[in-house]
């Protein structure tokens, strides 16, 4: 079933680097990337490391891992705001699910389930999530209006591309071991 769904997704979204609709009419950013020479296990480990470390936990975190099937699932979110010359504050947060599947020499990933959580000002002049208001982007036209929806879809696409780019870099690089402490060479003033 996963394979069937995957074929459909591939057919619909693979050719374009843009948001599309999946078979459930949900926005999706879908990419297939080939990495000849890399085994499925290597790609899996690097993708796992990506989900565990690439972003802070409130931005992206691992939700599920199935090593036997080469499947990883994560969830994350990014802030969206309207920019002005001198004023800028959080208008909301768009959350998403990310799915990664690996095979020998290639992997695919897709971001979907984009949900907008509006933010409002609290009594301490902070902007905080509105409790109980979560709207899938597919149904957000009534809440946001066309202009804001277009703006948020654009931001969802830009962020999806950025996440995909970072995933690509993690897959290209070997999983780093513990960072070495950078040593500063001592300055010897005796001989000059």
């Amino acid at each position, binding site marked *: 079933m996963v394979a069937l769904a995957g074929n459909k997704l591939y057919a619909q979204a693979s050719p374009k680097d843009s948001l599309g609709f999946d078979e459930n009419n949900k926005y999706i950013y879908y990419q297939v990337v080939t990495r000849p020479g890399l085994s499925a296990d290597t790609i899996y480990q690097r993708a796992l490391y990506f989900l565990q470390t690439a972003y802070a936990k409130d931005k992206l975190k691992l939700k599920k891992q199935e090593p036997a099937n080469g499947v990883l699932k994560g969830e994350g979110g990014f802030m969206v705001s309207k920019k*002005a010359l*001198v*004023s*800028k*504050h959080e208008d909301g947060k768009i959350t998403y699910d990310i799915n990664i599947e690996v095979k020998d020499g290639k992997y695919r990933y897709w971001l979907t389930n984009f949900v907008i959580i509006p933010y*409002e*000002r*609290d*009594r*301490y*002049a*902070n*902007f905080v999530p*509105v*409790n*109980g*208001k*979560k*709207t899938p982007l597919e149904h957000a036209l*009534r*809440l*946001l*209006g066309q202009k804001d929806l277009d703006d948020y879809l654009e931001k969802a696409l830009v962020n999806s591309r950025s996440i995909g780019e970072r995933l690509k870099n993690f897959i290209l690089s070997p999983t780093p071991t513990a960072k070495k402490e950078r040593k500063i060479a001592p300055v010897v003033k005796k001989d000059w």
Partner: protein
Amino acid sequence: MKKRFLLLSFFALSAFSIAKAQDSTQTDPPLTITGSVDTYYKYDFADRSNLPTSFASDHNSMSIGMVDIALKKKVNKASFVGEISFGPRGQSQSLPNAAGVYDETTNSYNIQNLYVSYDVTDKLALTAGYMATFVGYEVISPVGNFNYSTSYLFTNGPFQNAGFKASYAFSSKVGLMAGIFNDYWNVYKSVSKLNTFGAQLSLSPIEGWSAYVNLLTGPSSGTEIDFTTAYQITPAFKLGLNAATFSAGNDYEDGGFTGVALYPQYAVSSTVTLGLRGEYFKTKAGDYATFGPAPGESVTAITATANIKAGPLSLIPEVRFDNMSNDAVFVKKNGSPSKNAGQFVLAAVYAF
């Protein structure tokens, strides 16, 4: 004294971890500038200002509320908020001046919020300064309220509390705040001591439902116990509730108030929301005077409000009727005492 020592110790201990927590690899978020302006027209059906609400005080006049500007910056785990306001709502109607009195004409500090905060961990935050009170449902900023006129519970409760507080999130559903605050509400500096204890238990039992149990108690400021909750029952329907009881401090022999307000709101479209506020407010017998009924008396108020949004601009038409248990506060159009009063307000609030 022990409570105060405990909280001060919290701040001292946190100082040790500040240097360790710096992370120079992240880009600092920019300075955030937000705020609002509000203006209104009010017509009191008695052809004079009758209702003792905090703001929207001027009858048959195109009047201003305030221009409110909040600055915020967070670097790593340390942040500050500085919020200043100008205009009747942002000065003497909500803030004391430098001398500690509500005088429009002299020496206002114009400070709504001025505090610094440090996230010791993901769960523990410490905050110090002059902050909007944690008590109650309604707030000073017109952006934070659905109704434009204010409830008796809001008007008679605290507006700001200066002090230290520690907030701990046990989970995404339970949090606790405890703090020590100045001896009186709404003062930039204590009259003599930092001895009002405040605590807030915050609960979010299910998605869309938040509840706060608040306590503010001190020898001079008195004791207020407050319950505030809001539940977004459906995407269109929200129900809020505020209940509180207050007993006056040592400056009075006796007195205080008790009240409850219910806030149902229904979004009829993406731009129009209709709402009601029904409030019952009773003053306790004693020598403590409230903005409202005389000691031992009560008032029932019904407010019908529409909130019409056009981007950042909200238009707020509102009709309000108050019924007092005696005729000592309101007057009729001809000047004779009345148990009833009513008003119409049309306000415009722009948030940025």
